[in-house]
C-alpha cells in the first residue's frame, strides 16, 4: 500500500510540476532565433529532466519553455559521504577526461582523503578487454558498461553490486532510464547518458536550400535525390566504421514490425532458428540498398569512415550525419561555427504510420564492483551518488555535449543539447540494435552484411552467406 501511495504521489507530483512549466527568460524565450529547431510541439510524457522544450503557444507562436518534471520518489538527494581511500574509475570516453576530472576534483575536495583515478581505454579496446581487466582488479571499484551484451557479461560474472536500495538511484535518476541496468527488479547501475541515436542535420544548410526533414520513406528517398542533385552528400554514413555505421540499423528496426515481433525475430536469429533471408530482415536489407540506389550515401561509401564523415558534415559537404547526438561534440570541434546549427530527426523508414518516431539509448552504465573491498565499494557508491547530483550531471552534460539521465539538469548552457532536446518530445524506442547480444557471432556479421549491401553488394548472396556464418558461429 505504501508503495502504491508513493507511486500515486509521484504521478500527481509529476503532473503538478509539469503544469508549473514556466516561460524562460527573454534571452531564451525568443525561440525563433534557433530557427526551425523550435518547431516541436509538446513535451515527453513520464519523468524527464529539467530542460528547455520548444512549445507552441495558443497564439501559434513557438517558444522555448522550461519544463520541470519530478522523480517518482521525492526530491533529489545529496551525495553520500565517502570514506578515505583510493579507487579506480574505468571508462571508455577519453574525450570526457577533462570534464570528468573537474568533477572528480570537486568530489575529492568534498571528501578529503578520498581519491578517484580515471583509467581510460578507447571504446573498441574497452568493449573487448574491460571485463578481463576489471574482473581481476579489485581496485576498479567504479566502472561503466554499455547496454546489452557487455552489461550482461559483467552481471553474469557477479561483478555488479545491487544498488536498488540507494536513495540516489530512486530520487536522482530518471526512473525510465534505469531499465537497461535492471535485472529481476534490482538496479545494478546508473545509465548516465541519454543518447539519441538519430540523424543530426545541418539546420542552416536545410534552411538555405529549402530542404524539408523527411517524415516518410518515400520522402526520404526523394530527399536524397534532391540533395544529391545539389552536389551535397545527403547522408554522411560512415560505413567503414562498424560501430557508428550500425546506428542506423536502430531506425530501420524500429518501424520494421511491432516491437514484440522485432524481439521475436531477434531472438530467433540469435538462437539460429531464423535466417537473415526471411522477409523481415530481407526487408531491412532491401531498404539499405534502396538508400544506396537513391544516392543517399557518398561515393565509395564502403570505404567512407568516421573520420571523414563528421568532417564532411562539419564543412557543409554533407547535409545529415546519421549517427546520433554523441557525434555533435566531434562536429563542433571540427568546425566551431556549427555550434547551434544542428537539429535532430527520427529516420522514418515506412510510409505507413510509424510505430516509433526516433531512437534513444541509455548507456554508459555506472556500476560498483561487487568484488572490491567494502570501503572501496562505499567510495564508489559515494562517487556515483555525486555524479547523480544535478550540479555534477549538468557539468558533465554541458561539458561533453551529452544528454544525461539525471533529474534537474538544465541544458540551456549548451545550445546543441538544447536544440536536440526536442526529440525528447517524440515517441522513442530504446535502441533495438542492442537486442542482439551475441556481438561476435551475430551482430557484427549481420551489420557487416548490411554495410556491404548498403554499399552495393548483392542482397541474396550476402544474406545467404552471412546466415551460414552466423549459424556456424552460434554452434561453435
Amino acid at each position: 500500500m505504501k508503495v502504491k501511495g508513493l507511486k500515486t504521489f509521484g504521478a500527481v507530483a509529476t503532473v503538478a510540476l509539469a503544469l508549473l512549466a514556466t516561460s524562460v527568460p527573454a534571452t531564451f524565450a525568443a525561440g525563433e532565433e534557433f530557427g526551425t529547431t523550435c518547431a516541436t510541439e509538446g513535451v515527453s510524457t513520464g519523468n524527464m529532466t529539467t530542460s528547455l522544450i520548444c512549445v507552441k503557444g495558443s497564439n501559434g507562436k513557438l517558444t522555448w519553455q522550461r519544463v520541470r518534471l519530478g522523480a517518482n520518489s521525492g526530491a533529489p538527494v545529496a551525495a553520500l559521504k565517502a570514506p578515505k581511500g583510493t579507487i579506480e574509475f574505468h571508462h571508455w570516453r577519453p574525450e570526457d577526461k577533462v570534464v570528468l576530472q573537474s568533477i572528480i576534483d570537486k568530489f575529492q575536495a568534498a571528501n578529503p582523503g578520498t581519491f578517484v583515478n580515471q583509467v581510460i581505454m578507447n571504446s573498441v579496446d574497452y568493449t573487448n578487454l574491460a571485463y578481463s581487466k576489471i574482473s581481476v582488479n579489485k581496485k576498479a571499484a567504479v566502472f561503466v558498461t554499455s547496454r546489452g551484451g557487455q552489461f550482461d557479461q559483467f552481471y553474469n560474472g557477479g561483478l555488479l553490486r545491487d544498488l536498488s536500495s540507494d536513495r540516489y538511484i530512486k530520487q536522482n535518476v530518471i526512473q525510465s532510464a534505469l531499465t537497461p541496468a535492471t535485472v529481476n527488479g534490482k538496479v545494478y547501475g546508473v545509465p548516465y547518458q541519454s543518447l539519441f541515436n538519430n540523424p543530426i542535420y545541418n539546420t542552416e544548410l536545410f534552411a538555405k536550400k529549402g530542404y524539408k526533414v523527411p517524415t516518410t520513406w518515400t520522402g526520404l528517398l526523394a530527399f536524397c535525390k534532391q540533395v544529391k542533385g545539389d552536389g551535397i552528400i545527403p547522408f554522411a554514413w560512415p560505413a567503414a566504421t562498424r560501430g557508428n555505421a550500425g546506428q542506423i540499423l536502430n531506425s530501420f528496426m524500429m518501424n520494421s514490425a511491432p516491437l514484440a515481433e522485432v524481439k521475436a525475430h531477434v531472438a530467433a536469429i540469435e538462437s539460429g532458428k531464423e535466417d537473415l533471408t526471411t522477409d523481415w530482415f530481407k526487408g531491412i536489407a532491401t531498404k539499405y540498398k534502396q538508400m544506396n540506389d537513391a544516392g543517399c550515401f557518398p561515393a565509395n561509401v564502403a570505404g567512407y569512415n568516421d573520420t571523414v564523415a563528421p568532417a564532411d558534415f562539419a564543412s557543409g559537404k554533407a547535409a545529415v550525419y546519421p549517427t546520433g547526438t554523441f557525434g555533435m561534440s566531434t562536429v563542433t570541434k571540427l568546425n566551431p561555427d556549427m555550434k547551434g546549427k544542428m537539429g535532430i530527426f527520427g529516420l522514418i523508414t515506412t510510409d505507413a504510420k510509424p510505430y516509433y518516431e526516433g531512437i534513444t539509448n541509455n548507456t554508459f552504465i555506472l556500476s560498483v564492483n561487487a568484488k572490491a573491498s567494502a570501503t572501496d565499494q562505499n567510495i564508489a557508491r559515494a562517487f556515483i551518488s555525486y555524479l547523480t547530483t544535478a550540479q555534477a550531471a549538468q557539468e558533465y552534460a554541458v561539458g561533453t555535449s551529452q544528454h544525461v539521465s539525471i533529474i534537474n539538469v538544465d541544458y540551456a548552457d549548451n545550445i546543441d543539447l538544447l536544440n536536440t532536446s526536442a526529440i525528447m518530445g517524440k515517441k522513442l524506442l530504446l535502441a533495438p540494435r542492442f537486442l542482439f547480444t551475441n556481438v561476435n557471432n551475430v551482430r557484427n556479421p549481420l551489420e557487416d552484411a548490411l554495410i556491404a549491401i548498403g554499399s552495393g553488394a548483392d542482397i541474396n548472396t550476402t544474406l545467404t552467406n552471412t546466415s551460414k556464418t552466423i549459424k556456424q558461429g552460434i554452434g561453435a
Partner: protein
Amino acid sequence: MASPALAIYAFLYLYPSISNLLYSTTRWDGVTKPIQIGLRNFTYLLTNDDLFMKVLGNNFRFTLIVVIFQTSLALMFATFLVKNTKMTIFLRTLYFFPTILSSVSVGLIWNFLYDPNFGFINASLKFFGLDALAKNWLADPKLALYAIAVTQIWFHTGQMVIIYVAGLQQIPSDLYEAAQVDGASRWQQFKSVTWPMALPTTAVVVAYTTIQTFRAFDLVYSMAQPASLNGSDLLVNLVYNSAFVGYKFGYAAAQSIYLVILVLLVTWLQRRVLKNKTED
C-alpha cells in the same frame, strides 16, 4: 645457472602453453566453470566452420605474397646497399625507418593512402588517367587482403634488408673477383655467387617473415573494413575475436593451436627446401 632461466621460461611459456592446450578441450566463456568437451572444438573447426577455413586460406595467401615479395625486394635492395658508403648507410636507415613505427600508426597512415575518395593512391591513378584502376581497396572483399599485404611488405622490407646486408657482407670478396676474372656479368655474379652464398640468410629471412605474417594482427585490426566481409581477416584476428569479443576462450584456444601447428609445419617445410638447396 640454468634453473632461473628454466623457471622463467616455464612460468612465461610452458605454463600458458599447457593451459591453452587444456582450455582448447573445453567450452569456456571466461566467467563460468569450463566444461570439458574433448576434441569437439578441433573437429568443429575443420568440419563446420567456413569462416575458419576462409581465414585460413587468407592466411596462406597473405603469407605467400608477403614472403615472396618481401624477401625478393629485401634481397634486391641489399645487393645495391651492401657496400658501406654514406649514401648506402643513409638508404639502409631510410628503408629501415618504417620498422620503428608502431603498427597502428602504419595502419592509420595507409588507411589514408587507400581512402577511395581522398587517398593518395586513387588520386595518383586518376591523375595519370587510370581511373579504372582506382578501387575501394580496403572495403572490396577481393582486394582488401592484397592491399594490407602491400602495407605489410612496405612495413617490414627494411628490416629484412638489414639482415640481408649483414649476410651479404660475409660473402668473401675473392669469389666476386674470381667471377669478374672469368668475365661474369653482374647477373651471372648474382646467380652463381650471391644467391647460393645468401641461402642461409634467406632461410632466416623466410622463416622470420613466415612467422611474422602468420601472427600479423595489428595491421588487420586497424585497417580491415566491415564491407570486406572478413576478406582480410587473418587467423590471429579470428582468435582475438573468438576470445575477447565472443568470449569463447576454449574455441579460441583450439584455433590458436591450429595456428601454431601451421606455423611449425610451414617453417619446417621451408627449412627443408632451403637446406636441400644449400646442400646442392
